[in-house]
């Protein structure tokens, strides 16, 4: 019995959970920005940037999922042992949960940023900076997942 099923589950968790976070974040930001755009469509560029900021978590999750796939025998690499499969599963939890909850939080920050920017366009850079600050926690989760995932094929477990 090898760990293939767990590796697949790991790729799924990494991609889906962080995707949920991003989807919810971008979704609520998009709703607010459309409200602003209905008043003044010339702000589209700025609104787009603020709306997309919570979208990176999904991308991080996808990258981790993709790396699992290319190293566990789905798109290349060797089939993992049972323990390696479980290792993938454990590693994917970091970006899964980190991405999901930071996506929620960044979505809320983006909504506030959009409202601020709607009042005065000059606030755009401040809004952008503040919203990006949430990003670091998704990034840290991603790094942790990533470093574990790329070192699992070399582990003798």
């Amino acid at each position, binding site marked *: 019995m090898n760990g293939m099923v767990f590796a697949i589950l790991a790729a799924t968790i990494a991609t889906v959970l962080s995707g949920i976070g991003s989807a919810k974040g971008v979704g609520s930001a998009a709703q607010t920005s459309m409200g602003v755009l209905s008043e003044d469509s010339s702000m589209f560029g700025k609104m787009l940037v603020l709306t997309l900021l919570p979208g990176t978590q999904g991308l991080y999750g996808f990258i981790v999922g*993709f790396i699992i796939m*290319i190293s566990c025998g789905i798109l290349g690499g060797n089939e993992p042992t049972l323990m390696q499969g479980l290792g993938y599963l454990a590693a994917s939890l970091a970006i899964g949960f980190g991405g999901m909850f930071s996506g929620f939080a960044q979505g809320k920050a983006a909504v506030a940023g959009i409202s601020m920017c709607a009042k005065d366009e000059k606030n755009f850079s401040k809004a952008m900076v503040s919203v*990006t600050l949430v990003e*670091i926690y998704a*990034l840290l989760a*991603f*790094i942790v997942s*990533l470093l574990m995932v790329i070192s699992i094929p070399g582990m003798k477990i």
Partner: protein
Amino acid sequence: MKMKSVRIIALKKDRKRILEHIQDSSLVHIRHFDECENGFERVDTSAQLQQFERNAALTEQALKILDRVAPEKKSLLSSFKGRREIEPEEIGKIAASSVKVIGICNKICDLDKQLADSAAERVRIKTALAQLEAWKNLDIPMNTPDTANTAVFLGSLPKGYDNTSLSEALAAAAPDLLFEFEIIFSSSNITCLFLVTPKSQKETADNALRTLGFSRPLNPTSKTPSEKAKRFRKKDGELVRKSEKDLETLKTYARYRESIEDTQDYFVLRSEKYKVISELDQTKNVFILYGYVPEDDCEKLSEICKRAAPDCIIEYEDAEDDAPVKLKNNAFAEPAESIVTMYSPPSKKDVDPTPIMAFFFYFFFGMMFSDAGYGLILIIATTIGLKLLKPDRKMKNNLNLFRYCGVATVIWGLIFGSIFGDAPAVVYTMVTGKAITMQQLLPWPILDTQKDALTIMILSIALGLVHVLAGMCCKFYVCLKSKDYAGAFFDTGLWMTMLIGFAVLGAGIAAGEILIKIGAGIAIVSAVGLVLTQGRDKKGIFGKLFGGLGSLYDITSYISDLLSYSRLLALGLTTGVMAQVFNMLSTLLGTSIPGIIYMIVIFLVGHAITIGLNALGSYVHTMRLQYVEMFSKFYDGGGKPFEPFSLNSKKFKIKNSNDQ
């Protein structure tokens, strides 16, 4: 840069010329006093000001209307473009044509209002037509009067009836009523009917119908409903034609867009000038202008004023502490001024942090963005922008900022062995079929962000230590300058030696016993020093001791500051990994022709995403490292920015004027 406060005294007849020259040169930050000096008075220019502002608002409105009906095609790059240069004489032409342009703006606004009125009228007609729809089968006028013997009722009941049910309802309401009726229209909730009764029974019929909820039409006319509807339709058609014509006329006005924009600038400039005039202290014959001017520009200012008005008097004095601040840096540091100003301009007590911050800004940005290919794109894009667009000073600085960042990015990219991720290796593998890593491909030793992550983490924190120490050195210098020796040596110096001690100790763990001992020694001596000195403001021996011990707790804030630099690794790693993943994705379909097309598309899109996300992340997090980790050590800010009285126009600038 050192500021001088300046006082210009001149004859009133030269007022206009002097102010115009000062505005052109943008050298002077004008001071505004609430109170007028004794013996002087102020001129009330509010009437003219209002006039100018109204005109500026009118042009703004007209431009908005034009943007709506005839949008201007704008390229993405146009927002980077500098203002158009015009000859000094041209401003006279703009002034001369301003009356005409204002007339055009008025016409534009009128036409727009007419369009809006027509649209509203059409809505009214539509509602009226909808109401008439129910009556279209009636072939007599809506206000048909009673005849000699019969009373006529035309109106609606709020319920659906057919012939039988209506007869029954009427009979129930008034048993002995004689009537004849015709149902014109009936639906589930309305019945339009025409009813006649003998004139003698008019009262009875009226009462009976009222109990059923009868109501007469709101505005009956002497036309039949179908005729009336025809009229409405005709009027609607006329309105549509008129609106179309108005819209066409409106669109032809788009050719005036440029002159309207110029006129708007002209009125904004004039209203600014009049605002300054209203703040000048004046007597019957002379006026005084107070302001600040950078020391280096004093001569230039004198020359300009003398040229404008030979008999004016200019006096300079050293500026007080609350003078506005103008930063002056060399070409390397100047682009980073905007980063400092975004935080807060330096106050009189601060040193200008721009030079030292500029270096670390480029350096850290490069480490986070860390890809030679992306850095090259930044350099090329900003260089093209600088060459082609001739941007204003502010935009020029921003482009230069990213150009320097690009250079740092290329350097770090080469150190990390990342050129569009591992694109060269991927291409090599595709062509030859042999697997290869970037390390094997590049002739110099590289730090692989994934394999050597721990090394880079340590490097990041070491660089962070250098950054923090640089900030503390600034604090040391500031304290010495203000003769606060205790602050310099005890508060700052001891912490610096403490941090250095820990650094040596850390190096010792890798290098050997002796360094550990030296490092620990330095750290312990510094700690003892801190305990002895940090409580010096407290009363009593115990107060001093506990104050000193408590201050050691600050070590946590230094540790968290240093750990914060791990984001250098995090962002650098993310850039590399994202680039590699997109490279990998792009090669999935192999080397067939569709595969190559797919590869090119994914490669371009993927790297565009990576550049966008990571450039933004690197910019923000570099800024955070400067603001939170470094500035907190020594920089207070809170100065006033130097805002010279200048041509604050959007579209044009006058040639040869000193553009600051």
